[in-house]
């Protein structure tokens, strides 16, 4: 198995990119880092043998969502791009809190000793298809409706309604 050799570097990269997202003062840089993070996560999905999700991750996140964000940045552009993404006054306290929170979760993860054995994976794509059009039919439809509503909502919000 090569996965440990792929996983840990990728993991470190993801974390670094993610830190970049929050750290950069220029929002365009942040957006770039975000795309990189998404791609890294897609790799993690491949390591987890969830190829379909990896594709979707690339398509939806790295593709669509990132572009949306970039557009939003462009539409809300101000004069000085270098100071477009500053921290607020919660910076230090929330840093401490988040570190503490991270520690807490890591402790829980390490002490909970979930027992499992690594099983082989069959055809995930097929199983997902079965699930979406079988047991989860109704949630799936609901999700579709949600998307539709979101689109409509987004359009109405940006375009405004005539009274």
């Amino acid at each position, binding site marked *: 198995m090569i996965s440990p050799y792929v996983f840990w570097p990728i993991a470190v990269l993801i974390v670094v990119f993610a830190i970049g997202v929050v750290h950069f003062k220029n929002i365009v840089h942040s957006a770039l880092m975000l795309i990189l993070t*998404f791609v890294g996560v897609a790799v*993690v999905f491949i390591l987890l043998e*969830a190829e379909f999700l990896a594709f979707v991750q690339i398509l939806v996140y790295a593709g669509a*969502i990132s572009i949306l*964000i970039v557009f*939003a940045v462009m539409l809300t552009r101000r004069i000085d791009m270098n100071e477009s993404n500053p921290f607020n006054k919660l910076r230090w306290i929330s840093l401490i809190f988040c570190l503490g929170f991270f520690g807490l979760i890591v402790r829980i*993860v390490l002490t909970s000793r979930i027992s499992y054995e690594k099983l082989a994976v069959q055809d995930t794509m097929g199983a997902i298809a079965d699930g979406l059009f079988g047991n989860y039919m109704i949630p799936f439809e609901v999700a579709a409706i949600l998307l539709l509503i*979101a689109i409509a909502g*987004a359009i109405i919000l940006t375009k405004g309604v005539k009274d």
Partner: protein
Amino acid sequence: MVGLEGYLILAAALFCIGLFGAFAKKNVISVLMSVELMLNAAIINLVAFNRFLAPAKVTGHIFAIFIFVVAAAGIAVGLAIVINIYRSRATTNVEDFNILKW
């Protein structure tokens, strides 16, 4: 070989970074990006649990797909709101969005 714990810790790290970003950034777009990070962390968790605990059933994957959907919807509406507010207030600073105050 990397166990479940590795993925969980990765997800936790990603989540906490996202959390920090959501708390500490002024730009609302940045906050939204941080939220996306957190959602991604959640997806990693789901997929990892699915992979290690019950690979035969793909419940985790399906949930992940729903999260994609929700995330996409959220970001779309969220950005629309941002743009809308930007139009009326000419700012993307979260601290200026204080209309919730009584």
